């Protein structure tokens, strides 16, 4: 009975799931974008861009992060509760460790 309930539940699941999630070709396209972004990151390491280096690196990292979380982890398509839970952890970490770094770091990032 539980198996049947599960089957009935997820019988409706795949159609909804497929309607909202990228297709396999879509995932490959996203992976190609991620590969290009990685190549740009590595290229930046060898090109002299001066003070723009750190912001550019952080920017590229953030875009890659967002793409994986939104598309591969399906946060863009799933219930907002998962997004809130993830953001709670992420923003708490950024806040707490940002304060730690600001308090104890003798290295200042200059833009």
């Amino acid at each position: 009975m539980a198996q049947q309930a599960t089957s009935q539940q997820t019988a409706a699941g795949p159609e909804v799931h497929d309607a909202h999630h990228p297709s396999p070709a879509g995932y490959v396209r996203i992976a190609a974008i991620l590969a290009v972004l990685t190549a740009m990151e590595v290229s930046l390491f060898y090109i002299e861009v001066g003070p723009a280096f750190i912001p550019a690196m952080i920017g590229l990292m953030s875009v890659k992060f967002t793409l994986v979380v939104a598309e591969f982890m399906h946060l863009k398509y799933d219930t907002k509760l998962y997004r809130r839970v993830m953001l709670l952890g992420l923003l708490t970490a950024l806040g707490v460790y940002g304060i730690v770094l600001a308090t104890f770091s003798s290295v200042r990032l200059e833009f």
Partner: protein
Amino acid sequence: MQAAHETTLGIDHRKLAIWVFLGSEFLFFGAFISTFLLYVDNTPEGLGVELFDIPFTSISSFVLLMSSLTMVLAHSAHVRRDMRRARLWILATALQGAVFIGGQAFEFTTFVREGMGLTTSPFSGAFFVLTGFHGAHVTIGIIMLLSLWKLIGIGRVTPMEDVKTEIVGLYWHFVDIIWIIIFTVVYQIPAG
């Protein structure tokens, strides 16, 4: 046995649980990343970021990134009830993870040979603890993937239970996004 989806929130408790866990893991890795950043200059001359081989680490980073693709393709195949393809992509993901771990092992042994060990300096300690814990997470992920591959093969995970592949996938994508952060913040920015 209680039906799987009769929950008060109308969502799968297991999926909510993995997201709560992953949210807490940001705090876990954030501690090690910020410790590394605090100690990034605290090392003898020549035994710091100068040892990093960015081209080599770029390749292993790319491998891990592509393993996220094969993982999501595995889940997509499971949703479509194509279990043969799901198993194929799960195995591909595990193999790429193993390649990444192999790269990490090579990198660590190179650093040790060059004179930078776990206790050489605060920098090296912070670096090895951070990347070591990440490697341990990847290894656990590989074990989960191989277990899933086997369980699907013997019918213990059925075509209707795609949420199980999704949960393993969420964990795997998380170790990938942590490496996205580590590669930039730990390797490229300090060495740049």
